[in-house]
C-alpha cells in the first residue's frame, strides 16, 4: 500500500491496487462523525459505441443507457438497495456524468456493513423486463424536469453548439424516445463491459483505525 503524506494540511492518503485490478484509496479522517465512500466506474454517457466484452464487432446502444443502468443497479430481485442503506442508517446516492458513473453513501453508524452493501450491490446486477419498463416512467419525469430548467438547457445547448461529432452533445439521461428502446439485455451488455474492477475505483474516507479495515 502506498502512502501519500500532505504535511502542511496534516492529511494522509493511502492507495492500493488489488489483485483483481480495483484501485482503492483510503483517507483517514478520525475527527469526523461521518464516513463517506464512493465506488465509481470509468463509464459514462459518451460511451455509446463500443465493442462489448468477449465480442469482436462494435455496437451502438440507446442514448441514456449509462444513467439508466445507474438507476437499475439499486433494484434487486427481492429488494431495493436504498432500503438496505436506510436500515443501516446510511444515506445513499449515485450519479452519472459524461465519463463516469459513481455510487456513494455517507453514514455515521454501521460503517462496515454499509461498505459491504456498496461493494456488493454494484457488483451484483439484476435486471428484469418488468423493472426496466417501470423505470422508464421515472426517468421520463427526470428528463422532463430538466427540460424545464433554463440553466441545464443553456449548458446542453452550448455543448451541442461546440461539439458536432462527440457524443458529449447528447444529454446524459438521453431522451424519452431513446430510453424507451432500452432492454434488459442492453443493460447486461453495458454492465459486463464496463463494470469490472480493472475499470473501477473505490475511495473510502475512514474514521476507524486503518489496520482493521484493510489488510
Amino acid at each position, binding site marked *: 500500500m502506498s502512502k501519500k503524506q500532505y504535511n502542511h494540511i496534516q492529511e494522509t492518503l493511502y492507495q492500493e491496487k488489488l489483485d483483481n485490478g480495483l484501485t482503492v484509496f483510503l483517507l483517514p479522517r478520525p475527527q469526523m462523525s461521518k464516513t463517506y465512500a464512493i465506488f465509481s466506474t470509468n463509464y459514462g454517457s459518451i460511451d455509446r459505441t463500443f465493442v462489448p466484452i468477449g465480442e469482436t464487432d462494435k455496437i451502438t446502444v440507446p442514448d441514456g443507457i449509462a444513467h439508466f443502468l445507474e438507476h437499475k443497479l439499486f433494484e434487486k430481485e427481492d429488494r431495493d438497495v436504498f432500503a438496505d442503506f436506510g436500515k443501516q442508517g446510511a*444515506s445513499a446516492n449515485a450519479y452519472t456524468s459524461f465519463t463516469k458513473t459513481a455510487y456513494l453513501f455517507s453514514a*455515521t453508524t454501521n460503517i462496515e456493513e454499509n461498505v459491504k452493501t456498496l461493494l456488493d450491490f454494484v457488483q451484483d446486477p439484476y435486471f428484469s423486463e418488468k423493472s426496466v419498463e417501470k423505470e422508464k*416512467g*421515472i426517468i421520463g*419525469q427526470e428528463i422532463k*424536469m430538466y*427540460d*424545464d430548467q433554463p440553466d441545464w438547457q443553456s449548458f446542453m445547448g452550448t455543448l451541442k453548439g461546440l461539439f458536432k461529432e462527440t457524443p458529449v452533445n447528447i444529454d446524459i439521461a438521453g431522451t424519452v424516445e431513446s430510453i424507451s428502446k432500452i432492454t434488459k439485455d442492453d443493460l447486461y451488455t453495458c454492465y459486463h463491459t464496463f463494470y469490472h474492477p480493472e475499470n473501477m475505483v473505490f475511495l473510502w474516507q475512514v474514521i476507524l483505525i486503518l489496520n482493521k479495515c484493510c489488510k
Partner: protein
Amino acid sequence: MVSIQEEVKQLTGFNLHLIPNEKFKTVNIVMKFKAPLNRETITKRALLPHVLQQGSEKYPSRKELQVALDNLYGAGLSIDGGKKGNNHIISFRLEVANEKFIPNESEVLENAIRLLNEVIFHPNIENDSFNETVFEREKETLRQKIKSIIDDKMKYANMRLIDEMCDGEVYQLHVSGYEEDLDKITAKDLYQYYQSLLQEDQVDIYILGDVDSGKLESIINANFERQDSPNPSVEIEEDQSKSSQSDELKEVIDNQNVQQAKLHIGYRTNIRYQDEQYPALQVFNGILGGFPNSKLFINVREKNSLAYYASSRLESHKGLLLVFSGIAPNDYEKARKIMEEQITAMKNGEITEEELSETKELIVNQLLETLDHPQGIIEMFYQSVIANAELSPNQLIRKN
C-alpha cells in the same frame, strides 16, 4: 460521537457564541441580524446583502474587497438574507484558514475579524447614502433575481404554495422582496434603513473553530463596535383573523407551458421547533417523505412510476409540512390520490416498527452529518435563538 457545545456570552449589543471545535482547518465567523418580517422592510433587507458585498469604505470596489480577502489566504465572505418563521435574518459569513496551520502567522484571525467589522460597520457611502453606481447596479441584480423565480419551476411552485396557504400572514412575504417596492427605494433610504438595522436588530455572533476562546473574546471586544444594547427580541403575534387558515382544502391550479407539472401540497401541523412534539413531527416527516425509503418515494415513484422526485419537508419555525412531486400533467388526479393516501396512512398510524426505527436512525445520521459542516453546526445552534428555546443538537439527537 463527538459532542459539540456552545458557550454563550452576553456582551454589549450582541450575544457571542463560541463553539470550540477541532474538526476543521478553518475558522468560521457568522454574524446574524434578526428582525421581524415586515412588508415595509423586506425588499430593503433583500437588497442590502447585494450592496454590502460590493465593497466598503476602505475597499470601495468588489475587486479591492476580494484582494483583501485573498490576502487572508483566500478567506471567503458571503452575505445572505433568509426567512425563519416570522423573522428575517441577514447573515454575514466569513471563513478563514486557521492560522495554526500557517507557519509564522499569528494575525490572520484578528485581521479577518477586522475585515468583517469593516464590511458591516463601515460601508461604502457618500453624503449619507450608499454609493449610487453600486446601488443602481445591485438594484438591477435583485430585480433580475425576482423576475427569474418563475423560471425555476420548483421554487416558483413553493412560492405559490406559501402565497396561497399563508395569505394574510407575514410568513407569506417573499424573501427576495417585491419589484414594485424596489422601484421606490433610493440609495439614501437604504442607507438610513441600514443604520436603523444596525441599531435595532438582534445580533448574534458565532465563532467556530480550534481557537483560544480568551483570545477571541478580546479580539471581538476590541473590534466590534456596537454601543447600543438591542431591544429585546419581539415575537410577532399573528392576528388570526387576517389569516386565510381554515380546515377546508384549497385547490389551486396555475397553467403554464411546461414539460412537467409540479404538485405541491401544504399541511398545517401547528407544531414548531420549540414544541415538545417537534422531534415526533421530525420522525413523522421522515417516514412520510424525508428519505428514499419513505412512503412517498416508495409509492409515488417506485410502485407507480409517476415521478422522479416525491418527498416532504418541514418548515420548522412555522409549523408547516410541505409535500412535493414533479409529475406528468395527465397524472395529476392519480398522483394526488396516492400522495393523500400516504398522509391518511400516517394519520391512521399505519407505521411499522421497522419504518419507525429506520427513520429514527436516518434522522440521527442526518443530524450527525450536519455537525460535520461548520455552517451546519452554526445553523443548528441558531435554531434555538429563533425558537427562543434551548434545544442543542445533542438533545435533538437524544429525543429522536
